[in-house]
């Protein structure tokens, strides 16, 4: 049977399983579904090198997801679970000739908002912003606010271990998920119940949270909700001599036991692109205190004390209204994404590529300085970098993350952009991070483009990850190439050796 015949047969079977309206074979939509934001430049230039999926399907229930997965499992058809489409590391990119995208668009119901028990249950396709808006009307919040909030959906956020800009107070999505429902390739539906805590063996939520569609399909999640006190918000901004000063202040606040919701330290280069109107080419430190009034007061005092302690590196305070204004315009909308694509069609440049890592407080400055040094000295196209910098934006008691940010002019064909520019930089960042014991993937996931280093990331614990795949997806139908390294895909689509 030819590939085309096989594709037709798969589509017919999908229609039989669901309905014609639930099976999308529109060519433009399939082109869009071949990749995620990782290949946004090649996508904008119509230069994609990966196969299109056969169809995008929209199940209406967990039972339909179960039927679909059973079918694909029996037929050995690659499945890419999708909910939101804001992934950035190739997690939604297709590497197989026959692939079905299962999109959670129709799983769009807010099941329950329980303000007494402080939890909300939603189906996977509910947009985060929709849930957040509902909660805000009642005086609550999810506490989850990734930059992609206007377009991200709950299932995708949980499947990728998403983090929000207020994570230092509220935690990452893994700290918010109480229970969930997910479907495995053999069609089994598991529902993990909603309890405050339990000691019932290993915490099985974490098999689904962050699985990036490689083990199961998340259909429903229950998350914590929090009281919202926007009227108490306090904003703090400072210009600092260097990013190390900013990181020292963040550490001081954290280790003293305080939890600002926003806690960010920017290098001067990165600060310039976000805060050109006040950064004066200096590094920028930003904090925000949020919550009940007395907690905000105490957190604010702790911020000021920490700033005092490191006053040698503080140049000046920034008007808090400027920080508040920045905070109110943080997220990108669908319009921003479309504008970005238009810009990439017109200009031979790529702005805003990022690689995010994490490490303990002592290691972070070492990684930052080594990466900067190596990129400047080893990257053969360093003369085309128009920005190289970074920031820390999520802090913990024992360390923080670093977002390396780089923009560059592009002088090669769109299909070569990643291997000429991004991959060599990305490689330096990952190598330096792993060499010093950090994590190469703070919150964007591994996707397909960091799978080369998954084994190194996990070391001897990779055994556990590997066994999960063997048990839950023995036929390897779930999101081929994501998290688990696949040599053929790496050669063909990353190294382009074929």
């Amino acid at each position: 049977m030819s590939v085309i015949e096989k594709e037709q047969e798969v589509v017919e079977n999908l229609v039989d399983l669901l309905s014609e309206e639930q099976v999308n074979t529109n060519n433009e939509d399939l082109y869009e579904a071949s990749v995620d934001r990782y290949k946004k430049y090649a996508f904008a230039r119509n230069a994609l090198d990966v196969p299109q999926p056969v169809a995008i399907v929209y199940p209406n229930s967990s039972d339909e997801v179960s039927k679909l997965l059973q079918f694909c499992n029996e037929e050995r058809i690659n499945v890419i679970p999708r909910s939101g489409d804001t992934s950035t590391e190739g997690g939604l990119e297709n590497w197989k000739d026959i692939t079905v995208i299962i999109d959670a668009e129709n799983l769009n119901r807010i099941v329950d908002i329980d303000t007494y028990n402080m939890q909300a249950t939603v189906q996977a396709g509910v947009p985060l912003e929709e849930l957040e808006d509902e909660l805000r009307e009642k005086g609550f919040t999810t506490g989850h606010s990734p930059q992609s909030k206007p377009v991200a959906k709950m299932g995708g956020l949980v499947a990728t271990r998403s983090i929000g800009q207020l994570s230092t107070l509220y935690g990452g999505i893994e700290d918010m998920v109480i229970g969930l429902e997910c479907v495995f390739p053999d069609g089994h539906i598991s529902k993990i119940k909603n309890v405050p805590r339990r000691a019932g063996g290993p915490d099985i939520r974490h098999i689904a949270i962050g699985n990036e569609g490689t083990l199961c399909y998340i259909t429903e999640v229950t998350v914590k909700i929090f009281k919202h006190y926007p009227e108490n918000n306090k904003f703090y901004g400072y210009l600092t001599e260097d990013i190390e000063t900013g990181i020292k202040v963040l550490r001081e606040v954290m280790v003293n036991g305080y939890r600002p919701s926003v806690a960010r330290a920017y290098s001067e280069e990165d600060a310039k692109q976000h805060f050109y109107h006040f950064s004066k080419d200096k590094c920028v430190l930003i904090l925000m205190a949020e919550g009940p009034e007395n907690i905000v007061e105490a957190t604010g005092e702790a911020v000021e004390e920490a700033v005092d302690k490191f006053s040698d590196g503080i140049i000046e305070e920034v008007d808090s209204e400027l920080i508040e204004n920045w905070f109110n315009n943080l997220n990108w909308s669908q319009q921003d994404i479309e504008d970005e694509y238009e810009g990439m069609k017109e200009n031979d440049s790529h702005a805003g590529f990022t690689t995010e890592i994490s490490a303990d407080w002592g290691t972070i400055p070492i990684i930052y300085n080594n990466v900067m040094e190596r990129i400047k000295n080893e990257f053969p196209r360093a003369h085309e970098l128009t920005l190289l910098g970074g920031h820390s934006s999520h802090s913990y008691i024992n360390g923080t993350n670093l977002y390396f940010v780089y923009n560059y002019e592009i002088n090669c064909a769109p299909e070569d952009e990643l291997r000429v520019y991004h991959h060599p930089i990305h490689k330096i960042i990952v190598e330096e991070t792993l060499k010093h014991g950090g994590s190469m993937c703070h919150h964007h996931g591994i996707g397909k483009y960091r799978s080369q280093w998954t084994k190194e990331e996990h070391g001897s614990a990779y055994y556990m990850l590997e066994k999960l795949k063997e048990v839950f997806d023995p036929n390897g139908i779930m999101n081929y190439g994501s998290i688990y390294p696949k040599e053929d895909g790496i050669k063909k689509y990353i190294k382009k050796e074929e």
Partner: protein
Amino acid sequence: MKIICLVKYVPNVEDIKYDYEENVLIRDNVKLILNPDDAAAVAYSLKAKEVNPDLSIEVLTMGPKSVRPFVEDLLRRNVNKATIISDPAFAGSDTYATSKILASYLKEKEYDCILTGSKSLDGDTAHVPAQLGELLSLNQMSNIISIDQDSFNEKSAIIEVESGDKTLTYRMSFPAILSFRKETGYELPYIKYENMSLDVSDKLNFISNEELQLDEDMIGLKGSLTRVANTYNKNFKEKNKIVVKNDDQGIDYVYSFLKKKGFV
């Protein structure tokens, strides 16, 4: 056929910052870019070479040695040869001294025509092409917006030139200096992946005053006839900063502002 493309690497004006306290331009960390008008000239030459593979292109630039990686990228795009004229003795040269330095190199070279930009982003004087024409006794034409590909040969070319609100058509006899505008729409081709790190050092020459042997009185600050009576930065007074919120009132304010300035 042999073309010499005269190019200049200029600071990306978007990177230049202004120190309001000291009232000076800050040029630190400013990225260099190929002057857009000059890029159009190289782009046209490469396009012509596609049609006529025997055509030979030499890129000539004067500037600091740090332009090397940018020049190497032009060689990786199929330019045959590049020459960088660089010497601390040339620093501070005005457009006249610069033209003399370039002319001293060019007068020894064989070529059918010199293609370049009409003006540079940084100086904006448009002196150099015309001065070179004078020094080399060549005809020179600025503001070229297109060249008829079929007519482009060793003897002449039919060109279109923007002149006010009109477009004029000329036939230029060679040798001559043709100065392009970036609006030609000619774009540099991409570098092929396999050529991104190609060693092109054998096609790159550095020329200093040791080779040109120009009298020190002719070059650099000494040789620059331009006498600067006074320099001052355009007085960029820091405008009153008005921060508006992302609400109806803020949107109204921004809209009225843009309307007042004639943008909407």
